């Protein structure tokens, strides 16, 4: 892709243009107050993306601290929080216990619920799309902004507002329903105010999700640079596009579900209440109709990042571009049909059979992607900077996570594994080993473009290994706990499980240490990292054509696509030399994709 000045610089820009879009977007606007105000009212997708990035990472941090608290409690088979406090999170929630609201067991249950709810609703669902997607989708399309910039800002404030509800619920001792809010427990357990707040939080966050998704779909349709056809799009865009479809179509259902739940909670309208003739299983159907597709909202953007990083760091055209693109759409489509696999133990045989079958169907496009990724490495020129390390780790961990989805999808084995630690291990392998790992890959990959600085490769490798080893210690053990019979959401357990639980807890400490290393590496980069070149990894997608720190309106001139996103064999990357990224000899004829 080259930037060509096609004289498209619009005449109407002149009216309110003071040349500010040639300034890097991070340049402060006057004094500190003016700058803060500028960020708060910005419609620039890049700033919104950055604000989202810090917000979701903050939520990840909170969720992570809660997780470490869970793991500490699980060091011992019996409850250890009898009055004595274990860390900050327990202290916070135990305040409620002193007030007589929560009894001993419910402290753990609250932390468990908040961990799940924060991680899912406030971290991982908005996660990649709203932060990296917001920043890079328009850049990769060669656009000046998303289609509806004000809606984008609205989405950010709605997210803040929703999270505020969630956090205030937490500060009021939180909820103990599990992140799944199953009725009739969630409508009868005590803590009216907190539960209502949490329900509202999820309801409100849904709007944020819908706004973002809608914005991205329209942007992809209408704001592609000249010459950028659908099959010239980077796969990250395809992934975000498929994600957005799910967000737009599934989120309204959780909206209406939580509306019903809210009224059930406030006025006992009885729709989910067996006492009044309602049907608690109906709630489960509604809940999973959203929450299954949402697991693909979590993983598809991650897969998009992996596609980018694998191609760039092995300097190869992605193997089977179209297969990967279409499999994203296939996953998005089929994901709406499999929700019942979370409820094999509470539904009839026919439904169970259908859902089990469809579950296997959705695994196929995912398998296709994995094969394509591995094939991409073939005959490449592979380098191992942090983004690539994480991409490879993704292939490793996500394969485990995905393959352990199979015994959960099969009926007879799920009857045993359902609601056991096997499920816990499965979803951490896909959500953490998949999404979080890919997120880390993406953060490091795009860090230079976002902040104009490089990070320390050595130390971030240290962080990588700590995270990788810690993660496996924490969660691989849990597969065995699950098969041996450890149910999930248990604050105490029988003695036989102690050893595996302890290994898991020690692992979580290594994991936490890894994150602290990463945190310091990135903070250090922000203040003292060397200035980043325009295109440090030699990538070919459009975001690398702008300045090291993109200017306000992204590009100095409207870019035009002149080559595919992965034509590493034919094109010298913008801002790079052929010494850095040598091309293979020209004579061979390539088959077009």
């Amino acid at each position, binding site marked *: 892709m080259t930037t060509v000045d096609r004289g498209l610089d619009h005449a109407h820009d002149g009216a309110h243009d003071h040349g500010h879009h040639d300034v890097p977007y991070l340049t402060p606007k006057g004094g500190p107050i003016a700058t803060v105000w500028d960020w708060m009212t910005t419609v620039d997708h890049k700033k919104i993306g950055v604000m989202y990035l810090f917000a979701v990472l903050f939520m990840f941090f909170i969720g992570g601290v809660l997780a470490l608290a869970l793991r500490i409690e699980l060091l011992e*088979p019996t*409850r250890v929080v*009898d009055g004595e406090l274990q860390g900050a999170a327990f202290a916070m929630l135990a305040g409620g216990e002193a007030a*007589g609201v929560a*009894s001993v*067991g419910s402290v753990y*249950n609250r932390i468990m619920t908040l961990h799940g709810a924060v991680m899912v609703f406030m971290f991982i669902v908005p996660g990649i799309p709203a932060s990296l997607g917001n920043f890079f989708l328009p850049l990769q399309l060669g656009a000046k902004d998303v289609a509806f910039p004000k809606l984008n800002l609205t989405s950010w404030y709605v997210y803040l507002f929703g999270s505020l509800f969630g956090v205030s619920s937490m500060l009021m001792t939180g909820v103990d329903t599990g992140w799944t809010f*199953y009725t*009739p*427990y969630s409508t*009868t357990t*005590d803590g009216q105010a907190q539960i209502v707040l949490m329900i509202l939080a999820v309801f409100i966050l849904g709007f944020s999700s819908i706004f973002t998704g809608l914005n991205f779909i329209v942007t992809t349709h209408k704001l592609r640079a000249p010459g950028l056809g659908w099959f010239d799009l980077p796969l990250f865009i395809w992934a975000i596009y498929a994600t957005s479809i799910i967000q737009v179509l599934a989120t309204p259902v959780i909206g209406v579900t939580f509306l019903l739940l809210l009224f059930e909670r406030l006025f006992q309208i009885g729709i989910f209440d*067996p006492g009044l003739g309602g049907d*608690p299983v109906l709630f489960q159907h509604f809940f999973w109709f959203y929450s299954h597709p949402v697991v693909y909202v979590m993983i598809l953007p991650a897969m998009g990042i992996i596609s980018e990083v694998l191609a760039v760091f092995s300097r*190869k055209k*992605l193997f089977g571009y179209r297969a990967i693109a279409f499999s994203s759409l296939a996953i998005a489509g089929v994901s709406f049909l499999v929700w019942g696999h979370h409820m094999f*133990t*509470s539904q009839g*045989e026919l439904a*169970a*059979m259908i859902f*089990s*079958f469809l579950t296997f169907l959705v*695994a*196929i496009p995912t*398998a*296709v992607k994995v*094969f394509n990724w*591995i*094939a991409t*490495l073939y*005959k*490449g*020129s*592979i380098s*191992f900077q942090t983004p690539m390390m994480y991409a490879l780790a993704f292939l*490793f961990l996500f394969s485990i996570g995905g*393959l352990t989805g*199979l*015994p959960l999808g*099969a009926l*007879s*084995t799920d*009857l*045993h594994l*359902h*609601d056991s630690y096997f499920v816990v291990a499965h979803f951490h392998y896909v959500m953490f080993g998949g999404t979080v790992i890919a997120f880390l890959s993406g953060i490091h990959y795009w860090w230079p473009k976002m902040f104009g600085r490089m990070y320390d490769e050595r130390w971030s490798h240290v962080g990588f290994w700590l995270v990788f080893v810690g993660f496996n210690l924490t969660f691989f053990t849990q597969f065995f706990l699950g*098969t041996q*019979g450890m149910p*999930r959401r*248990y604050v*105490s357990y*029988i003695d*036989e499980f102690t050893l595996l639980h302890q290994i898991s807890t020690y692992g979580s400490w290594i994991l936490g240490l890894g994150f602290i290393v990463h945190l310091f590496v990135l903070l250090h980069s922000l203040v003292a990292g060397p200035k980043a070149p325009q295109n440090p990894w030699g990538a070919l997608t459009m975001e690398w054509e702008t300045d090291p720190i993109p200017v306000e309106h992204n590009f100095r001139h409207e870019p035009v696509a002149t080559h595919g996103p992965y034509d590493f064999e034919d094109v010298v990357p913008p801002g790079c030399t052929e*010494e850095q990224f040598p091309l*293979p*000899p020209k004579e061979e004829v*390539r*088959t077009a*994709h």
Partner: protein
Amino acid sequence: MSTVTLAGINDLLIRLFFRDNASSEVASGLAGSDGLYLFIWWVGVFFFVLLMGLMFWFCWKYRRRPGVAPERSSSHNTALEITWSVVPTLILVVIFFWGFDGYLRSQMPAGHAEQIDTTALMWNWEMTYDNGGFSAETVTMGNKDAPVFYVPAGQPVQLRMSSKDVIHSFWVPDFRTKLDVMPNRYTPYQFTTEPLASGDPRVKTMDITKGELVLKDAQYRDHWIFCAEYCGDSHSEMVGVLRVVEPSVFKTWKETPAYGVIDPPDEVGEIVYKAKGCAVCHSVDGSNNTGPTWLNAYGKPVRFADGTELSQADLDADPFAWDNYIRESIILPHVKIHEGYANAMASYDGRLSDVEMRGLIAYIRSLSDTKPDTDEIPLYDFLNEQTEGEEVGGDTAEETADEPAPAAEGEG
């Protein structure tokens, strides 16, 4: 030769995954579940090793060397792509049918099953046998007493499960299946227990006692019961033990009542306390829990959440005031909420016999250092006769105890 090795490995794996199974012979009865699990495991291992092997190999072979360009290669290969779509599909179809088949088998009702009514409530399991009997036995697990339920060996058993409150889930990991227990309908959990094989390390011997019954050196095998659907504070303590015994032992056991009617009431109360789930929320050692402790509670003034109270004056005026408070709290637990506690208890209306109710009152009373002057009250003379062996006539006491209603009215 190679199959022997495979069987050996499988055996090892089964032990690793499911630990309780002594051998793969045992697991063969669970082909629908463990067998499939192993199959999926091998499929997973195959693809994982294949893919990761390729990944590491490519990473090594094609690692970047400065100044060296990547080789040209096709980014598309129809034959390859079709292969890696179709092969997994076929494997997945096999897994699906295998799983579905095993599932149907596990759902199939077996004929002539021992029927047991199973009730789940926050946070305990209760089982009532077809003759109305129940188990009063518990084992200590951590800081709670888990109920023990008896079932016959080598026979089909069917549980008719229902819940008193929220959704629970009945899971015996050793049986590889679980089923949700719903508040608005019965769900069937069925299994056929393995016979008590002599070589099985899980089979042990003990003296089984129940009421007046003592069975010396009876063989048994225990299985854990867990509640697998999150149900609140003590979800993790909603555990039990399923004890498999010889059918003949089971028959005798079932037909013996859990306690004799002439047992001292506070001992009956203690049994009920453990067997009917009181112990989940109420401690008897003064420690705090979901509900108020029973230690030194009886006979003391109580303040309620709505600001009312059971005052010393009330207690002085009515010797049965505390008894009535207990009775009401068992039958209509939401009416008087102890200050500082949540309205968390489910009603026990209809689930305790008169004997059990009286027993509980006596038991709570026995735990207290404050008791009304017993000499003046015939009812307690009766109780004391049983507990302390005092020589006081008991016939008038029976009448009084059977009619608590007038006292309740008096308290009005």
